[in-house]
Structures are given as C-alpha cells and as structure tokens.
C-alpha cells in the first residue's frame, strides 16, 4: 500500500496513542488507502499497558473481521459473578451460561499482548508505526489542528486523532476538556498472578478456554467508592481494586494497602493461593459516565476512546475497551469521508459525535448515565454487603431457634443495619433504573 503522504502534508492522518482506540482508528483508515502515522510513547505498543480485563468484543468483528479467531484472547467469559464482600463473609450472585460460550460477547485479554497484536495488524494494513515517541503538543493554525510536535520535530496531517487515553494531554491542550474533577476519576491498582492453567480451571470450575469474571463490592475497598475485580486469563488471574479518587483522598487510605488487603481477604486469597506475582501496577480510570462526555471534535481533530471520556462503570461491568473500539470505528468512518471530500472543518467532523449517538457507544452512555450517581451512594460499598450477609446468615444459620419467613428475616437484618427500609427500596429502584 502506498503510505507516502499527499503533497502538502506529511500524512493524511496522525493518530496519537496506540491503545485500542488509536490502533482501530489507524487500521480502518489505512484499509481505506489513507496514509496514517500511529505514534506511541511506549517503546512498543502495549508496553505501557499493565492493564487487562474483560473486553466486550462484539464490536471488533466489525472493526477487524476474524478478530475472535486470530487475536490473542485469553478466555471466553461464560461465568459472571457479582460478589458482596464483608470482612468475614461474602454473598455471590453467580451467573454461568453456556449460551455465552456460543455467542462470545466477552473475552478476557492482557493488553500488553493485545495492543502489540493490534499494532501489528495496523502495520500490515500499511500504517506507519512510530513507537518510543511521545506527542508533546498539537500544532494549530488559525484555530485548526494541523499536526503534532514531538521532540524537536513537527509533522503535519489533515486530521489528528487524539487517542492518548484517560489523561489526554492533547485534549486539554486543545481546550476540549479541562482537568477532570476527582469524582470523575478512579485509580485502579492491579496484580497479575500466574497460576497453572489446570489450577485456574479447577478453582473457577471452568473447562477449555471458558473463563470467569468477578465484580466485587464492599469490604474490598473498605467501603470506599469503587470495587474489586477478578478475571481469569489462560494462565494467570487479573485481580485488583478500583477506588474513587475523591473518596480515597478523603479517607487517607493508601490504594496499595487496599489492594493488598483485598488480595489477602479469605474470599480472594483462596483463588490466588500458590500463585506467582507477574505484574503489578496502577492506572487512572475514568468513571464519570455521560457526565464526562464533552465535545469530541475541533477543526482537524477528533478524540476517541478514554481520551473522549468514554468509559462506563455500572458496578457489574467496567467498560472502556469496547467503547474505545466503537468510537474508533465511528471516527474512522467520518475521517474517511472528510479526507475524501477534503473538508476537515468543525461541521464536517461533527458527523462523528452524531455517529456515536447512533451506535451502542452513545446509546449505552445515555442508558447508564445515572450509573455513576448510583455508584456514588456510599451504602453500595459497605452496608448493603453486610445487610445481604446478615440475611443469608439468618437463612442458613439453623441454630435451633425457630425460623421466620425471609421477609421477616430481611426486616430484622434491616433493623440491625444502619440502613432504613425506605431509602433502601429507593436505592434499589434507582439501581434498577440506572443499570
């Protein structure tokens, strides 16, 4: 493929950041025959990414047909578990379904491998990959973004795509967004624990490349806003906590200690026993839902993925990778037609947010717009877990006192809990509406 640039610019498109959003955008545009430069600050794509997690990857079949068969996927998630943790107990909502193995909507991935693979697909499609280079600034002329500056060098393009993640320096520079308020941000601290494949399959009751994903609330964050997660990879477990920054700052707790505490909780420890720590790291997560979405274009600039604030934390699922891929697909479509028409104006690129609104990205962001507010409710992280475990204790602790109906048991548990019935029902309704 011809990747030489057209006359007046170095590249048709420059994409900053080779995460999922950047790589998918670059790939789609290169397939259309445009010259694309993909700049990544890490020494190689994925090398800066300790993260992993559950990728709701349906969208990838459209972005890169054959993704499920050829991408480095760890496991297909067929068991989802929501776990309410107290200091000495846990109540699990465990959902396993063979249909999930057939439809494959969620897979566990390790980003170091996935990002490297995505970038390799890009290069094969003709993208010029430039690792080890940090984009320092956008170049603007007359209010239009015309290129990037990195080191002492400048390169020009018709369109620049900011795919530089949750901290997006480029968006802040372009005035697309200001610094996020703390309550929109969370910090994720995570470990990858190596265990033999057989052990993982036994402990999680899995076979073949089926996998399990746990979302945990309550004691794992010492009742702070956030939650814990535990995913199975082929030969390792991704496990850690996500903590809301405002809560964390207020509490004076240390995120590393909360992470360690969660990993040594009896409910978690039994899964990890005998494992070897392979990776440890932390990263910011945006979890503001639609409240964080801001305008996503400037003349000559589009913003995709985390940089665009596209993450959803519903308590059940942390989603960002699928939204990154979906936004990339939408952006690539719009940039492709802009390039074909030679029109990179605000009006032309504004087709992108409209496109997002039409697909699952915009719609889900709207559907779950109340989720962050719901998750701001402090009871979510402590009292409800304790309430549930008290109810279950009443059901199963047959201590020869006469049993009562479940409703009465719930009533007792509520009485002993700082929670009141009405607000609890209200929260439950809010939850059902938000999620």
């Amino acid at each position, binding site marked *: 493929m011809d990747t030489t640039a057209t006359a007046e610019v170095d590249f048709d498109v420059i994409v900053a950041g080779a995460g999922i959003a950047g790589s998918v955008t670059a790939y789609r545009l290169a397939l259309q025959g445009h010259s694309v430069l993909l700049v990544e600050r890490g020494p190689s794509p994925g090398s800066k990414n300790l993260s992993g997690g559950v990728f709701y990857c349906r969208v990838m079949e459209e972005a890169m047909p054959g993704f499920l068969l050829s991408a480095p996927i760890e496991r297909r998630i067929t068991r989802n578990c929501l776990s309410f943790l107290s200091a000495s107990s846990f109540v699990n909502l465990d959902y396993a379904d063979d249909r999930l193995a057939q439809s494959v909507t969620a897979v566990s991935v390790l980003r170091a491998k996935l990002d490297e693979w995505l970038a390799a697909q890009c290069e094969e499609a003709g993208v010029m990959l430039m*690792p080890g*280079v940090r984009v320092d600034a956008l170049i603007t002329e007359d209010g239009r973004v015309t290129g990037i500056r990195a080191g002492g060098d400048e390169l020009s393009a018709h369109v620049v795509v900011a795919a530089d993640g949750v901290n997006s320096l480029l968006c802040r520079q372009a005035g697309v967004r200001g610094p996020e308020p703390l309550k929109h941000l969370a910090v994720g601290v995570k470990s990858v624990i190596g265990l033999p494949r057989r052990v993982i399959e036994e402990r999680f009751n899995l076979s073949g490349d089926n996998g399990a994903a746990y979302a945990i609330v309550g004691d794992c964050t010492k009742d702070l806003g956030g939650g814990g997660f535990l995913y199975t990879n082929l030969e390792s477990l991704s496990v850690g906590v996500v903590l809301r920054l405002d809560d964390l700052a207020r509490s004076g707790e240390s995120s590393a200690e909360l992470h360690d505490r969660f990993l040594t909780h009896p409910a978690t420890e039994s899964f990890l026993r005998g494992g*070897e720590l*392979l990776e440890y790291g932390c990263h910011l997560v945006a979890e503001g839902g639609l409240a964080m979405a801001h305008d996503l274009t400037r003349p000559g600039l589009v913003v995709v993925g985390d940089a665009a604030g596209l993450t959803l934390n519903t308590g059940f699922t942390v989603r960002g990778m699928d939204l990154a891929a979906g936004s990339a697909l939408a952006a690539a479509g719009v940039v492709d037609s802009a390039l074909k028409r030679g029109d990179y104006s605000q009006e032309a690129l504004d087709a992108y947010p409209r496109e997002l609104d039409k697909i699952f990205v915009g719609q889900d962001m709207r559907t779950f717009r109340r989720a962050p507010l719901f998750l701001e409710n402090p009871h979510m992280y402590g009292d409800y877990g304790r309430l549930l475990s008290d109810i279950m204790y009443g059901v199963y602790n047959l201590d020869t006192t006469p049993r009562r109906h479940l409703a009465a048991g719930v009533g007792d548990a509520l009485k002993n809990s700082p929670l009141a019935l009405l607000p609890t029902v209200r929260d439950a309704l809010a939850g059902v509406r938000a999620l």
Partner: protein
Amino acid sequence: MKIVVVFKWARNPLDARVSADAAVSWPGVKLAASDDDPAAMEIAVALAAGDEVVGLTIGDGDTAWAAARGAARTVVVTGTPGEADSAATGAALAEAVRRMAGVGAVLIGDSAWDYAVISALAGRLGWPAVAGVTAAACSEQGELRVTRRLGAAIQVLAAAGPVVLAVTASRAEKNVPGMKEVLAARKKPAEKIAAADLLDAAIAYRVQTQGTRFPDTPPARVIDGGDPRTACEQLIAALRVEGVI
C-alpha cells in the same frame, strides 16, 4: 573504511523475570538497543569518514535504528535462535559480515549484556577483538588507534587489519533521532537474510546457561529491642544510613 555496526542483538537483563526458584524467563521481551549501541554507532560514523556504515541486527520490530543514526543500509538476520544460543547468534552475525566484502571493522555494544555472542562473533571471523572501547580514530596512513578502558587505566592500542570493537558507552546518547530522521531511515534499503542460510547445518551450536544465582545481599542487622528507646534511635539511624528516610 567500511564499517559494520551490530545493533539490537540482546535483551535488556532488567526485563528478565526471575522467579522465586531463580529460573530466568523472558516473557514477551524483545531484543533491544543497549545503552552501548548508540556509542558504537557514533564511533562507527566517525571512523567511516564518509565511507559506508552498514547496520546489522537480529532484532525485529523497528530495524531502522542504525539507519536513523547514519547507516546507509541495514542487514536484518531473521530467525536466529535468540538468547538460547549465543554461539549460533555470533556465527550468524560473523557469516553476514563475511558476505559483505571489504569490511574494516565491526563495532558492537559491549558485552555486559551477553559475553558469549561477541566472543563467538570475533572467533568465527578470526579477527582480533578489543573490548571496553571508548574511542577509535583512523590515522592518515589508515592505522587504527583504539582507546579502551581497563579498570582505572586507559590504553591506546594500534590495530591493523579488520577488527571487532566492543564499545562501552560513557554517557547517554546525545542526539536521539527525531521522527523525521526515523521516517527517512525507514526508506533506506534493508535486506533480510534467514539465519538458516548463514549457519552451517552440520554444526551443533551450543552455548547453554547452566545456572543463575541471586546477587549477594548484605546480612540482616538485628537491633536489640531490650530498651525500646535506644532501639528506636538505632532503627532511625540505620534507616538514615540506608537512605530510606
């Protein structure tokens, strides 16, 4: 003088994973330019004095590293057995050099990351080798003067004929190439040769690492807790000495 610079031929030992039983593995770790590679490149460009500098690598990924620093072209040896066998790597590199006629010197980042490859390379070429090189210059008569550091001493050696120079960096790279240089470098010619075509199939190359050990750690110091106050003072003093607080 025509010069070959070997680059991106080792893994950074800091990237190795050492597990609890001292087994070493390299999950996903790529061959990388070492801190010494840029120094080798710098000396090569100066020595060549306008003659051809050829980059030679066994790495994958971005192979334009030398081209971005002044090499006219690059030879990429593909499919080497990697860290498993330094003798085979050295032999493949030597054969690749031999196939380029008229090479006056091979420069390579020093051996701290892998002693065996450089020895095998020099041995296979049958050329003299100098390690710890910090500078090199060519006189008008074509005589090579090589400066090397030996402990605290600095030696200047005269060398005749083709040599292998293992270069030690004394500072970080000064002029890291920018995006434009890298982009231009990718347009320079790069030739791929399969290691299998360079190696003699009849020879069983075998350099195996037999074991590793953890570095020595100083013995623990036990503070007597009999008198808590003194113990605290001693602890704080000890932490200060270690630079912890």
